[in-house]
């Protein structure tokens, strides 16, 4: 209902947000980052992605001038590749959703914790990032494996007779990704929470809101910039994650990156590998843009004005 209002042209924004000066400064400010990304990522990447327009030729990495869309049609007409793409998006979406929920809870717990405990809790939260992925996976195997802590506990309690299959499943991939990406969600939300006027949640309480309602309907919307920051980072990383799905996933938990890896370093089919990268990039960018746009649409009216 409010969408028509929300996408009003910028010229209609209220007087106090209209800036006349510094517009040229903003161009100057984003320039170095644009140059870095263009020079270090876009140009080198374009160089490789152009190969996707060549016929598949394992072992050949030079661009030829015979362009074709064969690789793209091969992808798009294959139910198999589309299923892998679907699975990739599904796992990334699940990871991001769980990460958002639990990240918000953790961030609020840290926010409300006494100052002197904060440092310790923050280290607890970022510690998964400090352990090499291979050892981390081994840790998960100890916890989730057939003879792992969870299964042996449940079996000794008589809850189950056969070990549950926890490791090497899609669920394990999501758990593994959640584990390392949680810090990337918690810290941005936390920094956003720290800017909230403590009176605001109290005001909600006085209006009869429960703690849960206060948290979800008052506090979190105010931390929206942190949330969107975390969501875009976690979603992007999940889409492009390779090692965790490879090590923790089951026989059929492969994601697009698994195939990309194969094409680039195993079969040396860079043409098709580049096609997969182009498709992954396009899908991820569109989905991230949707997230950013949706966020902007929902908060445009109150965000900048605090």
């Amino acid at each position: 209902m409010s969408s028509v209002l929300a996408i009003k042209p910028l010229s209609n924004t209220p007087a106090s947000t209209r800036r006349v000066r510094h517009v040229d400064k903003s161009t100057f400010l984003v320039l170095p980052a644009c140059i870095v990304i263009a020079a270090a990522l876009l140009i080198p990447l374009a160089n490789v992605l152009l190969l996707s327009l060549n016929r598949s030729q394992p072992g050949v990495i030079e661009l030829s001038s015979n362009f074709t869309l064969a690789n793209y049609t091969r992808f798009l007409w294959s139910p198999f590749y589309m299923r892998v793409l679907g699975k990739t998006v599904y796992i990334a979406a699940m990871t991001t959703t769980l990460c958002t929920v639990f990240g918000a809870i953790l961030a609020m717990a840290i926010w409300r914790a006494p100052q002197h405990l904060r440092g310790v809790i923050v280290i607890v939260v970022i510690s998964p990032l400090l352990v090499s992925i291979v050892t981390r996976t081994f840790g998960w195997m100890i916890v989730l494996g057939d003879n792992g802590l969870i299964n042996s506990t449940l079996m000794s309690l008589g809850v189950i007779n056969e070990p549950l299959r926890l490791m090497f499943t899609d669920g394990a991939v999501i758990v593994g990704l959640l584990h390392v990406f949680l810090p990337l969600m918690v810290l941005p939300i936390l920094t956003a929470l720290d800017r909230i006027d403590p009176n605001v949640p109290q005001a909600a309480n006085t209006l009869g809101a429960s703690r849960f309602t206060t948290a979800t309907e008052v506090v979190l919307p105010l931390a929206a910039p942190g949330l969107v920051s975390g969501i875009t980072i976690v979603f992007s990383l999940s889409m492009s994650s390779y090692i965790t799905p490879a090590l923790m996933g089951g026989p059929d938990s492969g994601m697009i990156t698994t195939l990309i890896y194969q094409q680039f370093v195993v079969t040396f089919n860079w043409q098709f590998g580049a096609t997969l990268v182009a498709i992954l990039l396009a899908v991820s960018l569109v989905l991230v843009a949707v997230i950013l746009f949706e966020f902007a649409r929902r908060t445009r009216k109150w965000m900048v004005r605090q």
Partner: protein
Amino acid sequence: MGNEQFSSTMNRRSFLGAAGAAGLTIGFGAPAQAQSKEFVSTVFGGVYEREYRKHIIDPFEKETGIKVLTKTGLSSEWLTNSIVNRRSPEIDLLLLPYPDSIKATMEGLGMPLTVADIPNISQIAPEWYDQYDKAGIGLDYVGYGIAYREDLVPTPPKSWQDLWNPAYKGKVTVPEIGQWGSWELLVVAARLNGGSEDNMEPAFAALKRLKPNIKQFFKSGVDIANLLGSGEAWVCGMTTNIPAYGLIDAGKPVKFIYPSEGAMAGAVSYHIAKNSKNADACKKFINFALGKDVQENFCNGVVAAPTNINAVVNERTRQRVPSREHLQLFSWAKIIPQMSELADRWNQEVAF
């Protein structure tokens, strides 16, 4: 007037020259010299690197004064790097495993190696020279077999065929496509079912039948150690002796066998980059590494079989590596061109 023009051009040219020289110095790390004092070689990590250093690099450096800079990482990266930097190689000497060694051969990355340059080649079993089109030379080989948990399996496996034993339901681990052993597994599966390198079709039907038995496709040696060590998997369907004996030596109830049909071979070989500026040093080094004594010491250290027919390894090593006669070799040159398709079919029919 004319002179001024000339001198300014000169100045600019000499400035550019100096800048170029500075760039080269940064680029190559050290200025190239007629008598190479060092070269870059690849090496696997862990125990392999330790033994390699101890028995080959250190004695070689001591003897010749040539420094060997080692690059670790993944063999597929070394190969990619060499293809990309073909004109001006970053890696002088490639030590490569299957199938990257054959890919390098087919890509023509390596320069021809001759007995004249490397006299010790004459002592090397011909298969480790010929399959690289004489542009590469084998250093050592290990065997692929089956590792299993003695304490957990109902009946111990004896042949490749036993991987399909229904008693191992959900307890077998085999390599992920692209991992060491995966192509060998495909060839074994094809051969067991009337196929060959030229007819890989039967492999897929066989692997589809294997699927119920598969717990997990392993992605690395650590995976094997973790899966077998923890008992998550009982049987590892295609592994070299290295991770298997790693577990056995650690006291795990693991056994390793070479199946009755024969062991698949895992060989590593040297390839000198065609445009290497340090080819002389590399040749000296290869000759040193292929010498009988060096081979014996090194192979006893990493527990591998020597390629030098005169080298005799100790008892422990002999028990753990397959004999030359018991090896099942196959034509990698026929498999490599099919790899992209094979991987695609594997993904669609076996893995996903």
